[in-house]
């Protein structure tokens, strides 16, 4: 595998293998010196065309724990503002001899274009509303730690699915691994067409709560109000926000996930955010290990995922 653009580059077996490999890197992260020389001499560049402190820090920590060198190409300080084309930027960074580019872009498909212009491995760290494969992998890893398996499990994804790359990748990942997924949102926050999506849809969070093994809350962005997608955040919270009363309707074992940053008081109340079943910080921790696994697979092992099974 050369690039990680979407989870389809991995397939279900590839996702499972990354999750297995992530265990190794969780162990590395727990060491006194959480650093191994596996990617010594490799250079990873960040091409972040959209702000994202969390994802960038997570990738950067992962790369450093693998001893890779890192280059930071951030839009505000670069030639993008001077009108340099995306292709010129990519070719320039390529010419510096990088082994991988971690790309965050506000346009769907930008990493796919970039992959055509460079010999480096391209890792999609979020493109528009399209995909966020490493987020989905860390979500899967976190869920697997809590639920053991996906087969027959029911996961509800709640919130602004229409504009969410996390939701698109998570739906793909969760269903790929055998879970049932229900999307819970007002109709205006669902994708306009769900043909081909192996999901159920509900507008009634309360009826869904008792049936789930995990609840995935998405960040509700305030600007959605001005686009007339919802009347107000207050009305959204009343219908789709998770408060203590609603959390009490969840089965005992069910966990609550959120990609962060949380809007306390909108999609989740402060009290629920601090419950033990809300595993947001586990997601952050696991994110580093998952990204170590991805970087190692693309740059380190030199082994195609599909062939490791035989050994």
């Amino acid at each position, binding site marked *: 595998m050369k690039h990680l653009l979407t989870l389809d580059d991995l397939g279900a077996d590839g996702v499972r*293998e990354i999750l*297995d*490999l992530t*265990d*190794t890197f969780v*162990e*590395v992260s727990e*060491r*006194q*010196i959480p*650093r*191994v*020389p*596996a990617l010594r001499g490799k250079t990873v560049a960040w091409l972040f065309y959209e702000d994202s402190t969390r994802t960038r820090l997570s990738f950067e920590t992962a790369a450093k724990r*693998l001893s890779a060198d890192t280059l930071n190409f951030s839009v505000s300080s670069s030639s993008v503002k001077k009108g340099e084309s995306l292709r010129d930027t990519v070719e320039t960074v390529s010419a510096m001899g990088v082994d991988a580019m971690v790309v965050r872009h506000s346009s769907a498909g930008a990493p796919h274009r970039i992959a055509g212009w460079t010999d480096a491995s391209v890792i999609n760290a979020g493109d528009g509303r399209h995909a966020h494969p490493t987020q989905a992998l860390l979500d899967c890893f976190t869920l697997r730690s809590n639920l053991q398996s996906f087969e027959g499990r029911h996961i509800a994804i709640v919130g602004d699915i229409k504009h969410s790359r996390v939701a698109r990748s998570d739906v793909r990942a969760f269903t790929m691994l055998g879970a049932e997924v229900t999307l819970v949102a007002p109709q205006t926050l669902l994708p306009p067409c769900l043909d081909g999506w192996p999901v159920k849809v509900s507008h009634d969070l309360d009826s869904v709560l008792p049936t789930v093994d995990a609840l995935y809350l998405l960040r509700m962005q305030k600007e959605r109000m001005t686009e007339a997608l919802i009347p107000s955040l207050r009305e959204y919270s009343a219908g789709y926000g998770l408060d203590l009363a609603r959390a009490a309707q969840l089965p005992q074992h069910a966990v609550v996930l959120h990609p962060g940053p949380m809007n306390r008081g909108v999609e989740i109340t402060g009290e629920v955010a601090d419950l033990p079943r809300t595993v947001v910080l586990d997601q952050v921790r696991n994110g580093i290990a998952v990204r170590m696994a991805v970087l*190692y697979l693309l740059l*380190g*092992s*030199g*082994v195609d995922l599909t062939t*490791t099974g035989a*050994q």
Partner: protein
Amino acid sequence: MTPPFGGVFVARTEVLSADDLKRAIWRMAHEIIERNQGLDNVVLIGLQTGGVWLAVLLGEALEEIDGNHPPVGSLDVALYRDDIGLRPVMPEAVTDIPVDLDNRTVVLVDDVLFTGRTIRAALDAIADFGRPRSVQLAVMVDRGHRELPIRPDYIGKNLPTRRDEAVDVHQNGVDLGEMQK
């Protein structure tokens, strides 16, 4: 099974029988006790994957002889190798260091000593876990062809080989043969 990866080992000659193997382990256990004047502070670390079961057997032998069972751990050095690409990280190859290694005597255990690169990687890895007082090396087979200044302290069997041959150390003995695609 040890590297190289890819291919199937085909045995040609039996080098050690199951009994020979047991006797070699027994002898190496004695040497470890003798060299270290007992087992105080000794930790056995088996290298994934071929050295782990040997470390376990060695630990059992030491207990039988000395009455004390030293801590036994395992170490996967895939992330420390300088010849990355030859061996992927295998999720089942767990690193488990059961005790703090500071001021301990660490005995690394592996099945076959060949170029020495695995041991070099293991020394780097051990350094990340602590600062042992000394590190010693026990291998079941030393087949020669060293590429680094590394020498074992305890040897089950010295076995001159050709570079293109392969050695398989398993529970029922040691075989010499070839890897076939």
